[in-house]
Structures are given as C-alpha cells and as structure tokens.
C-alpha cells in the first residue's frame, strides 16, 4: 500500500511517499495513523494532533473510521487552503 504525505505533514514525516506493509490488525485510517505515529519522531510530530490531519483513500476524502482494506493509495495532509 502506498502512502502519500502533503504540505506540513510531508515536511514533518520527511518524505512525500512510501510503500508500507502494516500489520493485519490495522483496519481503519485511525489505526493506521496510530501505527505510523510509532514509526519514528517525524511521524509522531506529523500526527501529534490526529484530528487536524485529513486523509484520502484512492483520491477521495475519507473519515478516520474508514476501512483501509483494499486501498491502493492512502494520503495524509493538513486542512486544504486552495482557491
């Protein structure tokens, strides 16, 4: 599964994307956020306030309780500031 990071989430994690292989009991986006937060200081910093970070599965916005089963690409990013 590919994970992509944008804006300050990308800067804190220290990379724009990576391939990950989380354990089988990681079922939802919030499980994945908790698991990623344990993968190093940058991750912990990026997700220090998990309610602020938004997520998308396969290029659609999802909530934290969305299931990640079957996802090809999961993205994490701050609230959008386009327009």
């Amino acid at each position: 599964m590919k994970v992509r990071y944008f804006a300050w989430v990308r800067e804190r994690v220290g990379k724009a994307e990576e391939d990950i292989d989380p354990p089988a009991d990681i079922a939802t986006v919030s499980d994945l956020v908790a698991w990623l937060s344990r993968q190093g200081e940058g991750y912990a910093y990026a997700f220090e306030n998990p309610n602020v970070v938004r997520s998308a599965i396969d290029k659609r916005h999802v909530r934290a309780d969305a299931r990640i089963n079957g996802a090809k690409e999961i993205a994490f990013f701050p609230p959008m500031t386009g327009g």
Partner: protein
Amino acid sequence: MSEATEMTAILRLQREPFDAAGEVAALTRGRADIGAVVTFTGICRADENGEPITALDLEHYPGMAEAEIGRHVEAARARWPLLGVTVIHRYGRIAPGEDIVLVVTASSHREAAFAAAEFLMDYLKTRAPFWKQVEKAGDEEARAKTWIEAKSSDDSAVERWKSA
C-alpha cells in the same frame, strides 16, 4: 443530448497563468442561450494577515485535485441549470498581483450562475487538495516560508450548501 441542455465543462490545473477573458469567450462563443456569466478570479495579494509577502507557493495532490474539482462541477451541474463551467487552478510559485484561480459559470439567468460560482469557490477553498505557503520578504537565505492555516470562516461558508 438535447441542444437546450448542452453544457461545456473545462477543468485545468496548471503552473502557467491563465487568460480569464479568453476562457469566458471560449465558453460563450457561438451560443445565444447564455444570458448570464459570472467570473470569479482569485488573486495573490501582497500581504497575508497584515504582513507583507513576496510570493505564494501552492502544493497540490495531482490526480485527486482534478477528481475532487470534477465531482463538485458535477454536483453544481446537477443542482443548477448551467450551460457552461470553467475551473482553472494554478499551482507552484505565484507572485502578488498574479491570478491563482478562475471559476466561470454560465446560465440562462443570473441566479444559477451566481450560486454555482459561489458553491464552487466555497468547495475549492475547503475540499480541493491544495495547500498554500507564504514566502515572507527577505534575501534568498532569509526567506521564511509558512503554511497558511485553514480559516474557520471557509468551513462555515461551505456548510450553507448542505442544508439547502
């Protein structure tokens, strides 16, 4: 497709500046069923929260940005009798005075054109995966970059389209 409901939708993400007048002309050319065109242009200001800036730098999520804007163009079409919609959003470095975003909506009457343009802008601000960084004044080394925080007023603006 009947001629009466013919609708042109143009959606582009690009680094280059756009030509708002040319886009309006492209949408209306050769048609006599359009009675109202609303154009919104978002422009880079020279200040952010009262502090001078030298540029904006826009990051986006390629693929998702197009898909998300496309979904909202479809939602606008379903909701209002539109005859044309154009959305162009730039990314990359943008200097003060330069255009950032263009939304053009065309309809027979003004109500639909105004409402759809506001709807699309409210959604672009809060749902399209773009992130703005401001570059503050200073020499090459000293230039500080700061991510712009999302505004709660933008979240309230988008809420109004849900109840209606």
